[in-house]
Protein backbone atom coordinates (compact mmCIF):
# COMPACT_ATOMS: atom_id res chain seq x y z
CA UNK A 1 0.00 0.00 0.00
CA UNK A 2 2.82 2.39 0.87
CA UNK A 3 5.56 1.21 -1.40
CA UNK A 4 8.41 3.45 -0.42
CA UNK A 5 8.16 3.39 3.29
CA UNK A 6 10.87 2.23 5.74
CA UNK A 7 9.42 -1.21 6.43
CA UNK A 8 11.08 -2.04 3.12
CA UNK A 9 14.37 -1.57 4.92
CA UNK A 10 13.63 -4.19 7.55
CA UNK A 11 14.24 -7.88 6.84
CA UNK A 12 10.81 -9.42 6.16
CA UNK A 13 11.06 -12.05 8.93
CA UNK A 14 12.12 -9.47 11.48
CA UNK A 15 9.33 -7.16 10.36
CA UNK A 16 6.74 -9.96 10.54
CA UNK A 17 8.01 -11.01 13.97
CA UNK A 18 7.56 -7.51 15.34
CA UNK A 19 4.21 -7.02 13.72
CA UNK A 20 2.86 -10.29 15.15
CA UNK A 21 3.27 -8.84 18.63
CA UNK A 22 1.65 -5.53 17.82
CA UNK A 23 -2.03 -5.73 18.53
CA UNK A 24 -4.34 -2.78 18.00
CA UNK A 25 -4.69 -2.33 21.77
CA UNK A 26 -0.95 -2.42 22.48
CA UNK A 27 -0.18 -0.05 19.70
CA UNK A 28 -2.85 2.41 20.73
CA UNK A 29 -1.63 2.33 24.35
CA UNK A 30 1.98 2.87 23.30
CA UNK A 31 1.29 5.74 20.97
CA UNK A 32 -1.13 7.32 23.37
CA UNK A 33 1.57 7.21 26.03
CA UNK A 34 4.28 8.61 23.83
CA UNK A 35 2.31 11.26 22.06
CA UNK A 36 -1.05 12.06 23.47
CA UNK A 37 -0.17 12.63 27.11
CA UNK A 38 2.59 15.15 26.48
CA UNK A 39 0.39 16.74 23.85
CA UNK A 40 -2.53 16.91 26.24
CA UNK A 41 -0.35 18.30 28.99
CA UNK A 42 0.93 20.98 26.68
CA UNK A 43 -2.55 21.69 25.39
CA UNK A 44 -3.64 22.27 28.97
CA UNK A 45 -0.67 24.50 29.64
CA UNK A 46 -1.13 26.52 26.48
CA UNK A 47 -3.21 29.59 26.66
CA UNK A 48 -5.23 29.75 23.45
CA UNK A 49 -4.77 33.05 21.76
CA UNK A 50 -1.38 33.61 23.37
CA UNK A 51 0.82 32.67 20.47
CA UNK A 52 4.26 33.36 21.87
CA UNK A 53 4.07 31.12 24.87
CA UNK A 54 7.69 30.98 25.91
CA UNK A 55 6.91 28.39 28.55
CA UNK A 56 5.59 26.05 25.90
CA UNK A 57 8.94 25.53 24.26
CA UNK A 58 10.57 24.72 27.57
CA UNK A 59 8.06 21.97 28.39
CA UNK A 60 9.99 19.65 26.15
CA UNK A 61 13.57 19.74 24.85
CA UNK A 62 13.61 21.06 21.29
CA UNK A 63 14.76 17.76 19.81
CA UNK A 64 11.65 16.10 21.25
CA UNK A 65 9.22 18.04 19.07
CA UNK A 66 9.72 15.98 15.91
CA UNK A 67 9.40 12.78 17.97
CA UNK A 68 6.13 13.94 19.53
CA UNK A 69 4.77 14.85 16.12
CA UNK A 70 5.99 11.59 14.63
CA UNK A 71 4.33 9.46 17.35
CA UNK A 72 1.15 11.52 17.33
CA UNK A 73 0.76 11.32 13.55
CA UNK A 74 1.66 7.61 13.55
CA UNK A 75 -1.34 7.12 15.81
CA UNK A 76 -3.46 9.19 13.42
CA UNK A 77 -2.16 7.11 10.50
CA UNK A 78 -3.26 3.86 12.17
CA UNK A 79 -6.65 5.34 12.95
CA UNK A 80 -7.03 6.79 9.44
CA UNK A 81 -6.30 3.54 7.61
CA UNK A 82 -8.45 1.46 9.93
CA UNK A 83 -11.26 3.99 9.60
CA UNK A 84 -10.88 4.16 5.83
CA UNK A 85 -10.18 7.89 5.61
CA UNK A 86 -7.24 10.13 4.71
CA UNK A 87 -4.79 11.04 7.45
CA UNK A 88 -5.01 14.78 6.90
CA UNK A 89 -8.73 14.84 7.69
CA UNK A 90 -7.75 13.82 11.21
CA UNK A 91 -4.44 15.70 11.18
CA UNK A 92 -5.69 19.28 10.87
CA UNK A 93 -8.45 19.26 13.52
CA UNK A 94 -6.56 17.05 16.00
CA UNK A 95 -3.14 18.70 15.73
CA UNK A 96 -4.68 22.17 15.92
CA UNK A 97 -6.73 20.92 18.88
CA UNK A 98 -4.01 19.11 20.84
CA UNK A 99 -1.17 21.45 19.94
CA UNK A 100 -2.98 24.81 20.06
CA UNK A 101 0.24 26.77 20.43
CA UNK A 102 1.07 26.03 16.78
CA UNK A 103 -0.87 28.46 14.59
CA UNK A 104 -3.45 26.89 12.33
CA UNK A 105 -1.77 28.43 9.25
CA UNK A 106 1.19 26.06 9.75
CA UNK A 107 -1.02 23.10 10.71
CA UNK A 108 -2.96 23.48 7.46
CA UNK A 109 0.27 23.71 5.46
CA UNK A 110 1.50 20.50 7.11
CA UNK A 111 -1.92 18.87 6.61
CA UNK A 112 -1.71 19.48 2.87
CA UNK A 113 1.76 17.96 2.72
CA UNK A 114 0.58 14.94 4.72
CA UNK A 115 -2.31 14.42 2.28
CA UNK A 116 -0.06 14.99 -0.74
CA UNK A 117 2.66 12.55 0.34
CA UNK A 118 0.12 9.86 1.19
CA UNK A 119 -1.42 10.24 -2.26
CA UNK A 120 2.01 10.19 -3.94
CA UNK A 121 2.91 6.93 -2.24
CA UNK A 122 -0.33 5.16 -3.11
CA UNK A 123 -0.79 6.62 -6.61
CA UNK A 124 1.78 4.73 -8.71
CA UNK A 125 0.58 1.28 -7.68
CA UNK A 126 -3.04 2.18 -8.32
CA UNK A 127 -2.19 3.58 -11.76
CA UNK A 128 -0.20 0.52 -12.74
CA UNK A 129 -2.88 -1.97 -11.74
CA UNK A 130 -5.50 -0.01 -13.64
CA UNK A 131 -7.62 0.96 -10.66
CA UNK A 132 -6.90 4.69 -10.93
CA UNK A 133 -8.10 6.14 -14.21
CA UNK A 134 -6.14 9.03 -15.76
CA UNK A 135 -8.82 9.86 -18.34
CA UNK A 136 -11.42 10.21 -15.60
CA UNK A 137 -9.22 12.02 -13.10
CA UNK A 138 -7.46 14.56 -15.33
CA UNK A 139 -10.50 16.75 -16.19
CA UNK A 140 -11.69 16.65 -12.57
CA UNK A 141 -8.19 17.43 -11.29
CA UNK A 142 -8.01 20.52 -13.48
CA UNK A 143 -11.19 21.86 -11.86
CA UNK A 144 -10.30 20.94 -8.27
CA UNK A 145 -6.74 22.23 -8.47
CA UNK A 146 -7.87 25.59 -9.85
CA UNK A 147 -10.50 25.84 -7.11
CA UNK A 148 -7.95 24.85 -4.46
CA UNK A 149 -5.83 27.89 -5.40
CA UNK A 150 -8.82 30.10 -4.63
CA UNK A 151 -9.45 28.17 -1.39
CA UNK A 152 -5.84 28.51 -0.23
CA UNK A 153 -5.81 32.23 -0.99
CA UNK A 154 -9.07 32.75 0.91
CA UNK A 155 -7.87 30.59 3.85
CA UNK A 156 -4.62 32.51 4.24
CA UNK A 157 -6.42 35.87 4.06
CA UNK A 158 -9.09 35.03 6.63
CA UNK A 159 -8.61 35.57 10.37
CA UNK A 160 -7.78 32.41 12.33
CA UNK A 161 -11.04 32.63 14.28
CA UNK A 162 -13.19 32.42 11.15
CA UNK A 163 -11.11 29.56 9.78
CA UNK A 164 -11.44 27.66 13.08
CA UNK A 165 -15.22 28.12 13.13
CA UNK A 166 -15.60 27.09 9.49
CA UNK A 167 -13.27 24.13 10.05
CA UNK A 168 -15.35 23.05 13.03
CA UNK A 169 -18.57 23.23 11.01
CA UNK A 170 -17.04 21.33 8.08
CA UNK A 171 -15.56 18.57 10.26
CA UNK A 172 -18.82 18.18 12.19
CA UNK A 173 -20.77 17.98 8.91
CA UNK A 174 -18.24 15.49 7.59
CA UNK A 175 -18.67 13.18 10.58
CA UNK A 176 -22.47 13.28 10.17
CA UNK A 177 -22.07 12.69 6.43
CA UNK A 178 -19.76 9.73 7.04
CA UNK A 179 -22.22 8.25 9.49
CA UNK A 180 -25.09 8.32 7.01
CA UNK A 181 -23.15 7.82 3.76
CA UNK A 182 -23.77 4.75 1.67
CA UNK A 183 -22.09 3.40 -1.44
CA UNK A 184 -23.50 2.46 -4.78
CA UNK A 185 -22.69 -0.84 -6.41
CA UNK A 186 -24.40 0.13 -9.62
CA UNK A 187 -22.34 1.27 -12.58
CA UNK A 188 -23.03 1.53 -16.29
CA UNK A 189 -20.91 -0.14 -18.94
CA UNK A 190 -21.48 2.61 -21.51
CA UNK A 191 -22.45 6.21 -20.97
CA UNK A 192 -24.97 8.38 -22.79
CA UNK A 193 -23.37 11.50 -21.26
CA UNK A 194 -22.07 13.51 -24.25
CA UNK A 195 -19.14 14.95 -22.26
CA UNK A 196 -18.06 11.47 -21.17
CA UNK A 197 -18.27 10.22 -24.74
CA UNK A 198 -16.35 13.22 -26.06
CA UNK A 199 -13.55 12.64 -23.55
CA UNK A 200 -13.55 8.89 -24.17
CA UNK A 201 -13.81 7.98 -20.52
CA UNK A 202 -14.50 4.33 -19.93
CA UNK A 203 -12.72 1.76 -17.88
CA UNK A 204 -12.32 -1.85 -17.00
CA UNK A 205 -10.67 -3.60 -14.08
CA UNK A 206 -10.36 -7.08 -12.68
CA UNK A 207 -12.56 -7.52 -9.61
CA UNK A 208 -11.23 -10.38 -7.52
CA UNK A 209 -14.37 -10.42 -5.34
CA UNK A 210 -16.66 -10.92 -8.32
CA UNK A 211 -14.08 -12.99 -10.20
CA UNK A 212 -14.63 -11.06 -13.43
CA UNK A 213 -13.68 -7.97 -15.41
CA UNK A 214 -15.89 -5.03 -14.53
CA UNK A 215 -16.45 -2.49 -17.29
CA UNK A 216 -17.75 0.93 -16.36
CA UNK A 217 -18.42 4.43 -17.64
CA UNK A 218 -19.24 7.53 -15.58
CA UNK A 219 -22.41 9.62 -15.89
CA UNK A 220 -23.38 13.22 -15.00
CA UNK A 221 -19.88 14.50 -15.77
CA UNK A 222 -20.85 18.21 -15.93
CA UNK A 223 -22.66 18.08 -12.56
CA UNK A 224 -19.71 16.21 -11.08
CA UNK A 225 -17.27 18.88 -12.29
CA UNK A 226 -19.35 21.65 -10.71
CA UNK A 227 -19.50 19.79 -7.40
CA UNK A 228 -15.78 19.02 -7.50
CA UNK A 229 -15.01 22.74 -7.72
CA UNK A 230 -16.51 23.04 -4.20
CA UNK A 231 -14.34 20.15 -3.01
CA UNK A 232 -11.21 21.83 -4.37
CA UNK A 233 -12.14 25.08 -2.65
CA UNK A 234 -12.43 23.33 0.72
CA UNK A 235 -9.21 21.38 0.21
CA UNK A 236 -7.27 24.62 -0.24
CA UNK A 237 -9.17 26.49 2.44
CA UNK A 238 -8.71 23.99 5.28
CA UNK A 239 -5.68 21.97 4.19
CA UNK A 240 -7.81 18.83 4.06
CA UNK A 241 -7.17 16.02 1.63
CA UNK A 242 -10.83 15.89 0.54
CA UNK A 243 -10.80 12.15 -0.15
CA UNK A 244 -13.87 11.97 2.08
CA UNK A 245 -15.74 14.03 -0.58
CA UNK A 246 -14.06 12.67 -3.73
CA UNK A 247 -15.15 9.09 -3.20
CA UNK A 248 -18.90 9.69 -2.61
CA UNK A 249 -19.03 12.19 -5.50
CA UNK A 250 -17.37 9.78 -7.91
CA UNK A 251 -19.39 6.81 -6.69
CA UNK A 252 -22.84 8.19 -5.92
CA UNK A 253 -23.09 11.15 -8.30
CA UNK A 254 -21.00 9.97 -11.25
CA UNK A 255 -21.66 6.24 -10.98
CA UNK A 256 -18.00 5.20 -10.86
CA UNK A 257 -17.46 1.79 -9.15
CA UNK A 258 -16.33 2.20 -5.55
CA UNK A 259 -12.88 0.66 -6.04
CA UNK A 260 -12.12 2.91 -9.01
CA UNK A 261 -13.52 5.90 -7.09
CA UNK A 262 -11.19 5.25 -4.13
CA UNK A 263 -8.16 4.76 -6.38
CA UNK A 264 -8.89 7.78 -8.59
CA UNK A 265 -9.46 9.85 -5.46
CA UNK A 266 -5.80 9.35 -4.52
CA UNK A 267 -4.79 10.70 -7.90
CA UNK A 268 -7.09 13.70 -7.47
CA UNK A 269 -5.70 14.38 -4.00
CA UNK A 270 -2.15 14.48 -5.31
CA UNK A 271 -3.02 17.11 -7.91
CA UNK A 272 -5.33 19.25 -5.79
CA UNK A 273 -2.91 19.27 -2.87
CA UNK A 274 0.11 20.01 -5.07
CA UNK A 275 -1.54 23.25 -6.17
CA UNK A 276 -2.65 24.28 -2.69
CA UNK A 277 0.69 23.26 -1.15
CA UNK A 278 2.54 25.67 -3.44
CA UNK A 279 0.35 28.55 -2.29
CA UNK A 280 1.19 27.69 1.35
CA UNK A 281 4.89 27.25 0.48
CA UNK A 282 5.06 30.65 -1.19
CA UNK A 283 3.30 32.25 1.73
CA UNK A 284 5.91 30.80 4.13
CA UNK A 285 3.32 28.61 5.90
CA UNK A 286 5.18 25.31 5.46
CA UNK A 287 7.57 24.45 8.29
CA UNK A 288 9.75 21.40 7.60
CA UNK A 289 9.99 20.77 11.36
CA UNK A 290 6.23 20.15 11.36
CA UNK A 291 5.84 18.62 7.93
CA UNK A 292 8.54 15.96 7.71
CA UNK A 293 7.98 14.17 11.06
CA UNK A 294 4.23 14.32 10.40
CA UNK A 295 4.55 12.83 6.93
CA UNK A 296 6.83 10.07 8.24
CA UNK A 297 4.52 9.38 11.17
CA UNK A 298 1.38 9.18 9.05
CA UNK A 299 3.06 6.77 6.68
CA UNK A 300 4.43 4.47 9.38
CA UNK A 301 1.01 4.55 11.02
CA UNK A 302 -0.73 3.83 7.71
CA UNK A 303 1.50 0.82 7.15
CA UNK A 304 0.88 -0.50 10.66
CA UNK A 305 -2.82 0.23 10.29
CA UNK A 306 -2.94 -1.77 7.07
CA UNK A 307 -1.37 -4.76 8.89
CA UNK A 308 -3.64 -4.42 11.90
CA UNK A 309 -6.70 -4.15 9.73
CA UNK A 310 -6.85 -7.95 9.38
CA UNK A 311 -7.45 -8.44 13.08
CA UNK A 312 -9.74 -5.49 13.59
CA UNK A 313 -13.43 -4.89 13.15
CA UNK A 314 -13.59 -2.19 10.45
CA UNK A 315 -17.17 -1.17 11.22
CA UNK A 316 -16.31 -0.57 14.89
CA UNK A 317 -13.17 1.37 14.02
CA UNK A 318 -15.06 3.43 11.47
CA UNK A 319 -17.51 4.38 14.22
CA UNK A 320 -14.62 5.31 16.52
CA UNK A 321 -13.17 7.51 13.76
CA UNK A 322 -16.54 9.18 13.25
CA UNK A 323 -16.75 9.93 16.99
CA UNK A 324 -13.15 11.25 17.01
CA UNK A 325 -13.92 13.45 14.00
CA UNK A 326 -17.09 14.72 15.66
CA UNK A 327 -15.22 15.60 18.86
CA UNK A 328 -12.37 17.22 16.88
CA UNK A 329 -14.89 19.28 14.94
CA UNK A 330 -16.64 20.29 18.14
CA UNK A 331 -13.34 21.32 19.69
CA UNK A 332 -12.38 23.38 16.62
CA UNK A 333 -15.79 25.06 16.65
CA UNK A 334 -15.66 25.86 20.38
CA UNK A 335 -12.10 27.12 20.06
CA UNK A 336 -13.10 29.36 17.17
CA UNK A 337 -16.07 30.73 19.08
CA UNK A 338 -14.01 31.45 22.21
CA UNK A 339 -10.98 33.04 20.48
Amino acid sequence: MIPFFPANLMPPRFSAHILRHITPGRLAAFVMGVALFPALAMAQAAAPGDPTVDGMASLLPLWAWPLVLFAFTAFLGVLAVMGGIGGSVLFVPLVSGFLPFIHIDFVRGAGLMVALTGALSAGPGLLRNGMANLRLAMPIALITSTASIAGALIGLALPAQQVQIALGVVILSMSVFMYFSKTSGHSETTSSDPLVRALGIQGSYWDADQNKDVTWAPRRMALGLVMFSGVGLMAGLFGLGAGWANVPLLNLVMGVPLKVAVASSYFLLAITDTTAAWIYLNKGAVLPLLVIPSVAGIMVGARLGARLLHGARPSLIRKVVIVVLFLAGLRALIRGLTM
Partner: protein
Amino acid sequence: MPKQTPSKSPRSPKPLSPKGSQKPLASNADERINHLFAGTEQWGARIGFWFSLGALLAYLVGWIPPYIPLETLTHSWGLPVNQYLAATGAPHGWDWLPLALHGDYLALAGVAFLSSVIIFSYLAVIPAYWRKGDRVYLTMVIVQVLVFVLAASHLLTVGGH
Protein backbone atom coordinates in the same frame (compact mmCIF):
# COMPACT_ATOMS: atom_id res chain seq x y z
CA MET B 1 -14.30 5.64 -27.83
CA PRO B 2 -13.07 3.40 -25.08
CA LYS B 3 -9.58 4.20 -23.85
CA GLN B 4 -8.58 2.84 -20.54
CA THR B 5 -5.96 1.28 -18.37
CA PRO B 6 -5.50 -2.45 -18.26
CA SER B 7 -6.21 -4.70 -15.35
CA LYS B 8 -3.24 -6.66 -14.02
CA SER B 9 -4.91 -9.87 -13.00
CA PRO B 10 -3.01 -12.97 -14.03
CA ARG B 11 -6.36 -14.41 -15.08
CA SER B 12 -7.09 -11.45 -17.27
CA PRO B 13 -4.00 -9.85 -18.70
CA LYS B 14 -6.02 -7.59 -21.00
CA PRO B 15 -9.51 -6.29 -20.29
CA LEU B 16 -11.95 -7.15 -22.99
CA SER B 17 -14.63 -4.99 -24.47
CA PRO B 18 -18.09 -5.23 -22.88
CA LYS B 19 -19.34 -7.33 -25.76
CA GLY B 20 -16.67 -9.92 -25.16
CA SER B 21 -14.66 -9.28 -28.29
CA GLN B 22 -10.89 -9.69 -28.13
CA LYS B 23 -10.29 -5.97 -28.67
CA PRO B 24 -8.64 -4.58 -25.53
CA LEU B 25 -10.13 -1.49 -23.94
CA ALA B 26 -6.75 0.08 -23.28
CA SER B 27 -4.48 1.11 -26.08
CA ASN B 28 -0.76 0.56 -25.76
CA ALA B 29 -0.30 4.31 -25.78
CA ASP B 30 -2.61 4.72 -22.76
CA GLU B 31 -0.80 1.92 -20.98
CA ARG B 32 2.56 3.58 -21.63
CA ILE B 33 1.22 6.91 -20.39
CA ASN B 34 -0.02 5.32 -17.15
CA HIS B 35 3.33 3.64 -16.54
CA LEU B 36 5.28 6.78 -17.40
CA PHE B 37 3.18 8.85 -15.01
CA ALA B 38 3.38 6.21 -12.26
CA GLY B 39 7.15 5.76 -12.63
CA THR B 40 7.88 9.48 -12.45
CA GLU B 41 5.58 9.85 -9.46
CA GLN B 42 7.10 6.91 -7.62
CA TRP B 43 10.73 7.91 -8.08
CA GLY B 44 10.00 11.56 -7.41
CA ALA B 45 8.24 10.71 -4.15
CA ARG B 46 11.08 8.45 -3.04
CA ILE B 47 13.77 11.00 -3.77
CA GLY B 48 11.79 13.86 -2.24
CA PHE B 49 10.88 11.99 0.93
CA TRP B 50 14.32 10.61 1.73
CA PHE B 51 16.04 13.88 0.82
CA SER B 52 13.67 15.79 3.12
CA LEU B 53 14.19 13.33 5.95
CA GLY B 54 17.98 13.42 5.59
CA ALA B 55 18.03 17.21 5.48
CA LEU B 56 15.81 17.44 8.55
CA LEU B 57 18.06 15.08 10.51
CA ALA B 58 21.15 17.05 9.48
CA TYR B 59 19.38 20.22 10.61
CA LEU B 60 18.23 18.78 13.94
CA VAL B 61 21.54 17.26 14.95
CA GLY B 62 23.34 20.46 13.99
CA TRP B 63 25.40 19.19 11.04
CA ILE B 64 23.99 21.96 8.89
CA PRO B 65 23.25 25.15 10.85
CA PRO B 66 19.76 26.58 10.38
CA TYR B 67 18.85 30.05 9.18
CA ILE B 68 16.23 30.41 11.92
CA PRO B 69 17.38 28.97 15.26
CA LEU B 70 15.17 26.18 16.57
CA GLU B 71 14.42 28.15 19.74
CA THR B 72 13.18 31.12 17.71
CA LEU B 73 11.08 28.86 15.54
CA THR B 74 9.32 27.08 18.42
CA HIS B 75 8.70 30.38 20.21
CA SER B 76 7.14 31.95 17.12
CA TRP B 77 5.17 29.17 15.43
CA GLY B 78 2.04 30.20 17.31
CA LEU B 79 1.90 33.46 15.37
CA PRO B 80 -0.11 33.91 12.17
CA VAL B 81 2.14 33.37 9.20
CA ASN B 82 2.62 37.08 8.37
CA GLN B 83 3.61 37.92 11.95
CA TYR B 84 5.84 34.83 12.05
CA LEU B 85 7.69 36.03 8.94
CA ALA B 86 8.15 39.47 10.48
CA ALA B 87 9.26 38.07 13.86
CA THR B 88 11.79 35.58 12.51
CA GLY B 89 12.94 37.30 9.34
CA ALA B 90 11.91 34.21 7.38
CA PRO B 91 11.60 34.68 3.62
CA HIS B 92 8.51 34.06 1.54
CA GLY B 93 7.92 33.30 -2.12
CA TRP B 94 11.09 31.94 -3.71
CA ASP B 95 13.39 34.02 -1.51
CA TRP B 96 14.20 30.87 0.47
CA LEU B 97 16.14 29.41 -2.46
CA PRO B 98 19.43 31.26 -1.80
CA LEU B 99 19.17 30.07 1.84
CA ALA B 100 19.07 26.39 0.87
CA LEU B 101 22.55 25.85 2.28
CA HIS B 102 21.06 26.29 5.75
CA GLY B 103 19.64 23.14 7.36
CA ASP B 104 16.05 24.36 7.72
CA TYR B 105 15.82 25.62 4.15
CA LEU B 106 17.56 22.56 2.77
CA ALA B 107 14.75 20.55 4.36
CA LEU B 108 12.27 22.99 2.82
CA ALA B 109 13.90 22.34 -0.56
CA GLY B 110 13.04 18.66 -0.07
CA VAL B 111 9.44 19.57 0.75
CA ALA B 112 9.31 21.81 -2.33
CA PHE B 113 10.61 18.92 -4.43
CA LEU B 114 7.87 16.66 -3.02
CA SER B 115 5.36 19.35 -3.94
CA SER B 116 6.68 19.30 -7.50
CA VAL B 117 6.56 15.56 -8.13
CA ILE B 118 3.13 15.68 -9.77
CA ILE B 119 4.28 18.57 -11.99
CA PHE B 120 7.20 16.42 -13.18
CA SER B 121 4.77 13.55 -13.83
CA TYR B 122 2.53 15.77 -15.97
CA LEU B 123 5.54 17.09 -17.89
CA ALA B 124 6.70 13.52 -18.49
CA VAL B 125 3.48 12.50 -20.27
CA ILE B 126 3.24 15.53 -22.60
CA PRO B 127 5.37 13.93 -25.36
CA ALA B 128 3.35 10.70 -25.09
CA TYR B 129 0.06 12.52 -25.59
CA TRP B 130 1.64 14.46 -28.46
CA ARG B 131 2.75 11.25 -30.17
CA LYS B 132 -0.65 9.70 -29.59
CA GLY B 133 -2.34 12.72 -31.21
CA ASP B 134 -4.78 13.06 -28.32
CA ARG B 135 -5.27 16.80 -28.62
CA VAL B 136 -7.94 17.10 -25.94
CA TYR B 137 -5.86 15.48 -23.21
CA LEU B 138 -2.66 17.12 -24.46
CA THR B 139 -4.34 20.51 -24.03
CA MET B 140 -5.67 19.48 -20.63
CA VAL B 141 -2.21 18.42 -19.44
CA ILE B 142 -0.62 21.65 -20.67
CA VAL B 143 -3.30 23.79 -18.99
CA GLN B 144 -2.85 21.79 -15.77
CA VAL B 145 0.91 22.43 -15.87
CA LEU B 146 0.19 26.15 -16.32
CA VAL B 147 -2.10 26.04 -13.26
CA PHE B 148 0.73 24.41 -11.28
CA VAL B 149 3.20 27.01 -12.51
CA LEU B 150 0.80 29.81 -11.57
CA ALA B 151 0.42 28.37 -8.06
CA ALA B 152 4.18 27.94 -7.67
CA SER B 153 5.09 31.30 -9.18
CA HIS B 154 4.15 33.45 -6.19
CA LEU B 155 2.25 35.69 -8.60
CA LEU B 156 -0.86 34.99 -6.55
CA THR B 157 -0.49 36.72 -3.21
CA VAL B 158 -2.88 37.36 -0.38
CA GLY B 159 -3.23 39.95 2.31
CA GLY B 160 -2.35 39.12 5.86
CA HIS B 161 -4.56 38.67 8.87
